């Protein structure tokens, strides 16, 4: 047990004593307020949470399992495959009881959904943690600028040393006021994530206002050219004139594509990273695959952020800071 836990147990004991708490409900509530969830679970586990009749509970050792149905002849049913199987000799098959209908009766009473109802299917849930989505996208949209308030401490320090700075030192600050260019990978590898792309674009629009959002589409890599959603013609990629950041929504060519040439090659992405650095652009990307699948050569150049529920604001800030300093360097 850590010293931190001991401190909080002291808090717990002090609270229980000072407030004269005797009921277990109140004690649990105090544990929850002190973030002592583990202890809360211990206490909870000592109280019955399921009131089941005794006859419903069967000791595991006394359980009987249905006989597995005969495995259909297939490659996986060969003894060699069974031996190689990571789960040993266990095979999972549909259990059939003699005389039981294969098709449950209730299935026949189900009516297909009306077309209008299907059209109102809910949007996909966010790939990012919904509670942090705004902060995460805000972090991905911000670029580092040195146009904050006057860095008085720096200025006074310089004057105290008898030196006159060539320009007034400014505080660094993160800002979204320069807008954001979003390059959306429209290739076949990103097809499963179309809904997620639209959700992110909607949130970014709400966060930055639409006039600060420049959306462009590309296939393969931005070096093959970009187009806007309303124009068909493909034009060479141009860095944002506002000096804002560039966010790429892409799978980095990880997913299979048909034809294979639809995937952007690592060399093309590196050329794009070079072009962005030359233009002084702060470049970051949002990738719907885990970091261990990213091409190693791109991880340090495109500053990818995992498009995932486990992505945190601190992680985004760290990656975006690296992107900002890469640009400055």
């Amino acid at each position: 047990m850590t010293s931190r836990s001991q401190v909080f147990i002291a808090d717990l004991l002090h609270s229980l004593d000072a407030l004269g708490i005797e009921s277990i409900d109140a004690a649990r509530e105090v544990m929850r307020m002190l973030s002592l969830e583990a202890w809360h679970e211990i206490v909870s586990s000592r109280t019955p949470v399921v009131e089941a009749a005794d006859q419903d509970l069967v000791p595991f050792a006394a359980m009987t399992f249905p006989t597995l149905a005969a495995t259909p002849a297939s490659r996986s049913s060969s003894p060699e495959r069974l031996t190689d199987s990571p789960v040993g000799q266990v095979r999972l098959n549909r259990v059939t009881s003699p005389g039981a209908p294969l098709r449950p009766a209730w299935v026949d009473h189900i009516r297909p959904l009306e077309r209008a109802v299907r059209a109102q299917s809910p949007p996909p849930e966010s790939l990012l943690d919904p509670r942090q989505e705004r902060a995460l996208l805000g972090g991905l949209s911000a670029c580092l600028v040195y146009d904050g308030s006057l860095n008085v401490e720096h200025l006074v320090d310089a004057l105290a040393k008898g030196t006159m700075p060539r320009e007034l030192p400014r505080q660094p600050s993160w800002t979204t006021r320069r807008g954001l260019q979003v390059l959306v990978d429209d290739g076949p590898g990103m097809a499963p994530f179309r809904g997620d792309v639209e959700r992110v674009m909607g949130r970014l629009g709400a966060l930055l206002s639409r006039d600060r959002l420049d959306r462009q589409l590309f296939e393969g890599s931005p070096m093959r050219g970009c187009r806007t959603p309303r124009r068909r013609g493909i034009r060479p990629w141009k860095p944002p004139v506002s000096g804002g950041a560039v966010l790429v929504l892409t799978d980095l060519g990880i997913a299979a594509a048909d034809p294979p040439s639809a995937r952007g090659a690592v060399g093309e992405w590196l050329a794009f990273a070079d072009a962005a650095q030359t233009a002084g652009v702060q470049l970051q990307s949002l990738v719907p695959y885990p970091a261990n699948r990213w091409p190693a050569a791109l991880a340090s150049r495109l500053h990818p952020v995992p498009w995932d529920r486990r992505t945190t604001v601190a992680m985004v800030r760290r990656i975006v800071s690296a992107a900002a300093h890469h640009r400055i360097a």
Partner: protein
Amino acid sequence: MTIMKLTFNPAFFDPVSRVGAVRNKHGQVAVPVPGHAAYVYSEAIILAVNVALATHRPLLLAGSPGTGKTTLAANVAHVLGWRFYPRVITSRTRARDLMWSFDALRRLGDAQASAHAGAGSLRSREAYIEPQLLWWAFDSESAIWRGGDPGADGVTPAVDPGLGAAATPAVVLLDEIDKAEPDLPNDLLEALDTKRFTVEELDPPRTITASHDQVLTFITTNGERELPAAFTRRCIVLKLDPPTVEWLVSIANFRFGREHEPLHRAIAKRLKVLRDAAVRQNMREPSTAEYLDALAACQRLAIDQTSPEWQMLEQAVLWKREDALPPADDE
């Protein structure tokens, strides 16, 4: 709001005993504050405030907008009779801004004027220090003289921004901490944990200290940004549930009187529909304050839900968006 059946002695904070407090049929306690809406306490809230006072830890209030996070701190300060120091955190707020500020530019100007004039327009360092809310809450005696000796050369006494009687303990509210840069909570950890910080601009630096039972800190978050685990661990955490119809009606009855309860209930039900619709659309939910605004408008303009003006009022005060209002049959 969940009605909890708790058994404890509210040794540090007992709004039930407050003059004017009323317990409603759901076991909640409403405490009116002159000039403000009444605050309706659940037993969970009373317990959380007591635990925070017993353990000398900040109380972190989490919950969606409109759940009463901000008004709780002011009401607790009123019930306790303590000074109150609120501050809304912004993206530019730094930890030091909550303790003190130092006017280096003015000092630089005075130094240059002093050098040219040869006279003593440069004052002692204390004169350029402005105590901020944590300093006032921790030690108002030293804050008045900006950390220096009373009557020091050129030092004018600072004005206490606190609300409430002097020489009492203090309630501090750091509102919307998730609007700040992610590092701010960690930067505040030591000051809030030890009730101590050092003013480095003073010569020599001076440490400002509070006794642990002198300060109760409220911090609010609406969950937009994650807070550091180390910070959360040092707080008492209370999640405030979204307002229920009964909770809203209780507040409205205290504010506007029971004779209008049918209207209060009807608009509370409508607010719930709007909040649910906003959640589904991932938009901001109308809050308790907007509900009270709607009721105030209804009362003063003699409007109710049958009036032709109602829909316009609903759009302007509760929904506040260009798209159409959710249909009434959602109810």
